């Protein structure tokens, strides 16, 4: 029973695909073709860094190529724009985890920075000011290293069962930070997908491949305005 508890718990955004006890799940869920996120510096293309959690990483999808950043890459490719998407999604990551990880990723040049973090904070009921503090710290680090970098904020909401007070406070975090830091804002990343069982996996929170396409559309509407060359 003990393992069962942890097995189930470690599922989901909180701790997706953790090696802890979830033995075979993740080991067997992907047998498709991985499109390697080649990070070798390509001087002809500019880098778009998608920095986020399981939604970016495409948790539960057959392959990372079905996750929304890859869908965005396809759109970019079809328009022949000189941009390359780097998927830096890490399932289960909170804003504080992101703050610890960002330096590692900033070793490579970043031209557009897309921030998709906070959902796990919300699901764990982490105090809102803590999330604000961490997200701000991440943005500060990006700005300090690449002052010319374009910034995009992907807004999140928590489900209504968290209570109106918390949900409203949480929802407000993203527009506030976007305005303060002069970032382009996607008001709600999962707009049209969240709460719709048909577009979500069985866990009810991670979009299916179909859902990810809608998510990519939501992102693309805003992201395209920040790209050069069109």
């Amino acid at each position: 029973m003990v393992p069962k508890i942890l097995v189930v718990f470690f599922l989901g955004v909180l701790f997706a695909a953790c090696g802890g006890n979830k033995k075979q799940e993740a080991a067997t869920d992907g047998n498709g073709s991985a499109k390697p996120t080649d990070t070798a510096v390509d001087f002809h293309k500019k880098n778009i860094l998608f920095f986020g959690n399981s939604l970016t990483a495409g948790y539960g999808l057959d392959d990372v190529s079905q996750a929304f950043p890859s869908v965005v890459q396809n759109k970019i490719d079809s328009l022949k724009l000189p941009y390359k998407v780097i998927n830096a999604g890490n399932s289960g990551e909170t804003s504080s985890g992101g703050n610890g990880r960002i330096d590692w990723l900033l070793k490579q040049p970043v031209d557009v920075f897309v921030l998709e973090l906070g959902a796990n904070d919300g699901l764990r009921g982490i105090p809102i000011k803590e999330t604000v503090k961490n997200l701000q710290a991440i943005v500060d680090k990006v700005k300090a290293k690449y002052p010319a970098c374009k910034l995009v904020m992907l807004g999140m909401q928590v489900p209504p069962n968290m209570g109106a007070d918390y949900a409203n406070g949480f929802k407000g975090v993203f527009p506030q930070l976007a305005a303060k830091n002069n970032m382009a804002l996607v008001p709600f990343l999962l707009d049209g997908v969240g709460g719709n069982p048909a577009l979500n996996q069985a866990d009810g929170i991670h979009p299916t491949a179909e859902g990810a396409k809608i998510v990519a559309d939501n992102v693309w509407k805003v992201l395209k305005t920040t790209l050069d060359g069109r």
Partner: protein
Amino acid sequence: MAKIFWLFTMAWRDSRKNRPRLMLFISSIVFGIAALVAIYSFGYDLRRSIDDQAATLVGADLAISTNKPVGQNAMPFLDSLGATRSRELSFVSMVLFPKSNGTRLVQVRALQGGFPYYGDLETTPVAAGRSFLGGRNALVDNTLMLQFNAAVGDSVKLGQVTFKIAGILNKAPGQTGVASSVAPVVFIPLQYMEQTGLAKKGSRIEYSFYYKYAAGTDVTKMVDKLKPRLEKEDFNYETVDSRKENTGRFFNDLTRFLALVGFIALLLGCVGVASAINVYVREKISSIAIMRCLGATALDAFVIYLIQIVGIGFIGSVLGAELGSFIQNVLPVVLKDFLPLTINTVISWPAIGQGVLIGVVISFLFALLPLISIRKISPLFTFRLSFESVNFAADPLRWLVYSLIVFFIITFAYLQLGSILGSLFFTVGIFVAFLVLTLVAKLLMYTMRIVVRTTWGYLVRQAFANLYRPNNQTIILIVSIGLSTMFICTLFIVKDILTEQLVVSGSSTQSNMVLFDIQTQQQDAVAQLTRQQGLPVMQQVPIIGARIEEINGKTAEQAKKDTLPQRPGERGRRGFGGELRLTYRDSLVSSEKVTEGKWVGLVDPASTAPIPISIEDHYANNLGVKLGDHITFNVQGTNMATVVTSIRSVEWNRVQTNFRVIFPKGVLEQAPQFHVLLTRVPSTAASVKFQQAVVRQFPNISIIDLGLVLSVLDSLLDKISYVINFMSAFSIVTGIIVLIASVRISKYQRIQESVLLRTLGATRRQIGTINALEYFFLGLLSALTGVLIAIAVSWLLATYSFKLPFVVHLAAPGILLGSITSLTVVIGLLNSRGILNRPPLEVLRRDV
């Protein structure tokens, strides 16, 4: 008709001759059957108690749940499943304690109906567990109450509604799942759900439906029928049986163990009855010869004694069954204060029926064995008292009786074990044990015949000669003592193996609190805080996310092409594309064992050679990688070339972090990572104090408190381990009693000789020494053989039936060996005490 009456009269008359002796034989049967009935009945009782316990894990006979709102057409279906039902919505939410203005994440369970049907919502005050549903009340987990310094009567706010705290929640059935461990629980009545405003589109809610059925309903069978519909609706379902399966191996182990005990009880009964009957019939041979002299036909003699023995078997069995039921009913009352669970004793008619039936059938079969040779006893035997020349071999009827006995044992074993294969194995095992013991006995007799020298002192010579001379009891005693020892010792060892497993799985040595999302710069401070609070840092591990980029130079896409079309049985490259959590460290932990290759714990960061890594065996199999294969990992955007240098087996069933892939120290220290810390908190108060301190200093850290969940599991494991200990102790004691009884029936075997020796002038001391030496040898040899067989049997059981590592602590078998040997000697001496303490003439004049 008159003839039949005459046969019965004769059977009766013959039994009158020596009633005390008859009583001795009956007592052996009584003990054998009493042991059997008591063990069976206790087995049933304890099973039921454990099943009742298991039912509280779910709290209902059937629980159906889904994380999607239930549609219009599914609702009538759910309603049709049972009249006694409850509904529950559960979800996480932020709770507000207005008094202290504190908020935190909780697990809300909005309940309607009589759930839990098994067990109770244990609350303070007690009545609140049921009465809170009557108003705008809430039951609040003890941890929360302590954290916010709240008292019963205060209020909590969930969504738009303020509830009055009606009680503190201490324990709730069906709460062993995930939800309760993520956040502390708050129960509210379902009717206020609407008002809270928490159930809206997009809310993540688990909808549960609980059903209770009349006792005796086969829920598993019912659910099997419902399965297609349940699956179509995408409903999860759980029954008490399925929960038991998921709870782990413990229930299965218990079932197997009780079956083993039942089987041993059966054989103890057999030993008790068979050894009594065997000796009894042998003693009757001279009487039979006399009857033949007086004109009785061989058939008459046969039937007379068959009637008599089956009669004795029946009386003994009924008395034994009564004694067994008496013990079953009295013992729990006597032990009431020590029992961790309430045992409701129910008179078990199946147990009694089986006991009496077994007693009679065994008496019949084991009487047949010597009685068929009665047919060949000629009247002349009366005058030539040479018993040994009654040739038992080469009678085809004997083989018929043997096969009947084997058939009988298989049948009853099947009744106990419920598996044909299992009962065959057990029967063959017993047969082998029987053969080994008989061989040992024969070998002893043969050796003694050769070894004994006339130059030895008379006492030693006489004692050893007793082992092989005519009228010896070597085979019968070695077999019965040996078998009893074997049963007792097997129980000892298997019990130890099982309870050890329970201790390992129990949480008393394991962590019950997990802190995660600890950032690298926080890890030292968190560990320090933990120690400051007097808590152990049981594990502290870094966790890093990565993906596999290439295996032996091939990406997943290429690998996929290569392995298609896949031949059956070929290892595929599954689990390639997904995310992977890995760690780095310099040593193995206790749950790991390297099965192939060599563990490398440290590398030079400056080295450019591929990094040596260790992979878990199942994962390696899934990936289709072997020692020496090259894997490239994408660690957060940085590719790292590695080589598999070791493959590990990992025990996953512990509360600790385990990993499929482990890097050595020296390369990943700078990679993005978070840390997990495992500790053990001794009490709720300590847990609350620690959680508060952590949250205050490190608001980003999430804490899972497994205390409540593990305590439910622990109390269950305690009970299972208690049942196992109790049943083995009880069976061991009855086994010893049966053993005493079967040695005791050899009382009359040596009487005549002892009296003769006494008349010839032997002192008490001399006769005592002769008897003691004989019994010492018999006891030692049979106990030793029994113990050795038991070790072999336990190894087989552990390896093939329980599938557990075989461990034997030699102390138990050693003590058993000593005590059974001395027990045999003591009984042997007691057997002859009556003769030794009285003058020879007095003994001679009595009818011995």
